[in-house]
């Protein structure tokens, strides 16, 4: 026990930090050990239907690479230098036995790298069930929707085989409700940050959201409630910072020091897409009718835009970002994309064009999950906030 009094927020954040730093996933291991027969299903970015995993009584566990604290020894043996970091650190987690308790792995359709990783998993870890989650690029209910529903159904059967029990519609509907509650809280937290960024630093909010990848959803919802309450309870000094949106189509995660560096160099991050899955659906998913169809509908019509998702309507391409700037009253956008991330980096010029067309200031740089040198990042973010600051009201 520490003898200095710790504020409630600091306590919550410390817990999140511990969860974040724990590359052995002890909480998830403990959860699994607590009851015989429990299953853990790992998933990679950017989106999987966690509701079905939950409905199967299993724990959806987000695997987001190894961050900057994992020493990658074998992972590099599987990837050339011009491929992003996240698959190699994920392989490292696998080879080193850190995720040996995971019963199944889901690899969503985000890019060629994760797609191929699904096959690598099958070859390397034949004892773990591995499955690719194909996501539709056609957004008509009776075409893409129908296909996606069949895909969801296959996932449901796959999970059923892992747990040994079929998953009922009712169970899925109940899980959707649990996740709806979580999404509401997540939205609330983001809104609070937009209103009072000095009270909700991005590096904190990130940790709180990141905890949702390893905790059971009910526990995570409670964590957010606690965090919101403690934050509302305290008032931190307001700084002369500029307001920015950080956009990176995050699959590979930025090192925490990167988020902190951006903040330290004079920026309030008022919106970001670090962890989109937490608020993938913009509103509640329907809890009546065919639950798989409901999930499919939300995916098609009510989900965030992100580079791996095709935009059928050219007129809408990239508008979501302009929208985010407006909604969060941001003064500029910082693009931070993972090095060698083709989907994000190929999308970037198009996003930049649309921001330019709307007169939104922007800068762009790249990172890797293990970037050690933050100096160039501070430099760029700092110059950006300098220029916003020096000229504000001028």
């Amino acid at each position, binding site marked *: 026990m520490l003898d200095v009094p710790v504020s409630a927020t600091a306590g919550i954040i410390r817990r999140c930090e511990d969860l974040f730093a724990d590359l052995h996933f002890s909480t998830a291991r403990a959860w699994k050990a607590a009851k015989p027969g429990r299953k853990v299903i790992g998933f990679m970015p950017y989106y999987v239907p966690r509701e079905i995993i939950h409905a199967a009584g299993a724990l959806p566990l987000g695997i987001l690479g190894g961050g900057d604290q994992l020493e*990658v020894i*074998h992972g*590099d043996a599987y990837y050339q230098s011009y491929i992003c970091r996240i698959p190699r650190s994920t392989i490292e987690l696998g080879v080193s036995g850190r995720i040996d308790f995971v019963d199944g792995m889901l690899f969503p359709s985000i890019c060629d790298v994760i797609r191929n990783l699904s096959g690598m998993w099958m070859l390397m870890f034949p004892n773990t069930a591995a499955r690719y989650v194909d996501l539709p690029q056609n957004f008509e209910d009776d075409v893409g929707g129908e296909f996606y529903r069949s895909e969801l159904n296959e996932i449901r059967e796959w999970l059923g085989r892992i747990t040994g029990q079929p998953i009922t519609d009712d169970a899925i509907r109940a899980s959707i409700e649990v996740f709806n509650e979580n999404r509401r809280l997540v939205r609330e937290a983001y809104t609070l940050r937009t209103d009072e960024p000095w009270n909700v630093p991005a590096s904190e909010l990130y940790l709180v959201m990141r905890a949702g990848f390893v905790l059971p959803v009910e526990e995570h919802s409670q964590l957010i409630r606690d965090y919101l309450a403690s934050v509302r309870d305290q008032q931190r000094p307001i700084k002369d910072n500029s307001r920015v949106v950080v956009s990176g189509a995050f699959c590979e995660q930025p090192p925490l020091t990167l988020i902190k560096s951006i903040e330290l160099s004079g920026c309030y991050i008022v919106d970001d897409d670090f962890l989109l899955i937490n608020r993938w659906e913009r509103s509640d998913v329907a809890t009546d009718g065919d639950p798989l169809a409901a999930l499919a509908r939300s995916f098609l019509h009510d989900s965030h835009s992100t580079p791996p998702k095709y935009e059928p309507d050219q007129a809408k391409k990239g508008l979501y970002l302009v929208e985010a700037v407006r909604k969060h009253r941001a003064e500029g956008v910082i693009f931070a994309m993972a090095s060698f991330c083709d989907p994000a980096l190929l999308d970037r010029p198009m996003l930049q064009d649309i921001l330019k067309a709307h007169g939104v200031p922007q800068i762009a740089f790249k990172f890797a999950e293990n970037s*050690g040198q933050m100096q160039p990042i501070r430099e760029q973010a700092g110059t950006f906030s300098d220029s916003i600051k020096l000229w504000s009201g001028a």
Partner: protein
Amino acid sequence: MRTFIGIDLGSTTTKAVLLDENRDVIGRGITNSRSNYATAARVASEEARIDGRFTLFRRALESGEANGDLVQAFLGALERNFRLVQFLEQLGDLEETCLGQLKTERFAKVADRMGEALNEVFRRLRAEAPDLYAPGAVRKSDFFRDIAGSRFHVHADAVAEESAVPHEILLNAYDKSIIDVENRPPSGDMSDKFHRAMERVLEIDPHLIDGANDVPARIENTLGLELEETYLVGTGYGRVTLPFSKEHIRSEILCHGLGAHMMYPKTRTVLDIGGQDTKGIQVDGSGIVANFQMNDRCAAGCGRYLGYIADEMNMGLHELGPLAMKSNRPARINSTCTVFAGAELRDRLSLGEKREDILAGLHRAIILRAISIISRSGGVTDEFTFTGGVAKNEAAVRELRKLIKENYGDVTININPDSIYTGALGAAEFARRAVVS
């Protein structure tokens, strides 16, 4: 006698090995790979022949009147004095070249004062030379460029202060001269240098060979023995620029595999970390390469990296390891870009991290990369041999042992003091096989 020579033209050093018909190593020679590869190859093989002479001296003396200790002491003294003679000769060349620079326009204005200063610097260099080669003395490296360079710095600093000549300009004169000097092929008659060295030895300590009167004659005899260059094989990074035809060239991978097999016939996995590449090689029971992997186009994490760090810290290469060994909390270093290494070092020093911790972290980073290359080539199979220049670095070796143990369990790890010659050794054997098979 017939000899077979293998030359490994590396990116930083050029190594030569001289083999006799019985597959015994007669001599080894090394020099820095300079701008002239042909010269480097010549110097290295010359050095190998010099070393070969010492082997032959030993053989000749051991069968004579002198006892083991005496042979040891005598040959030690002979070698030191031989090196000193060599050093002084090159120093003379350097002095002449430096003074020659004064005629150029650049130095014209200060030529007089500078001439005096240079004379003084070289006087001091010559005066301390015997100390450099005294028994037990430690030198920054064995290459003229490094020894002369570092001592020149020291003396130029002092002399500049005393004689009010800018320090920079003295260094510049040295920088301008050294390339020429080291690219001049070795001059003078080798036997003559041996004779001079002999004279020095006997002058300093005539009693050294008391009781073994046959020594001078035996040495003389051996010097008369011709070392015929029967066949030569070149390998290494610079092999394509060697003036050899195709049948005299082998890939360095095969040479390293074979060389490691010759040193340790049971070896199955070989790691070689050289100046700008790192190789993981798997060999079978007869030294045939079964698989290999190399670093890609980025030279991050190779030996040259340590060179930059040493320059940055103003230390000798061989001092890095010992300093890093002092650390028990290596820093975590992610970027191993060789060129940024200096910047990262400064960055971290300014954040208050300790030098040894940073250094230890840098060594670990190099080895981590190497381990992943081995992993790529198929992992580690008993026995494991570590070769190349970096194998001389104890901190790198410590990390390697740790990581091999953690990842592959108890594996025999071979590190030979002559590991830097592995590639040249393999090449020499290929040369031998081309003739004697």
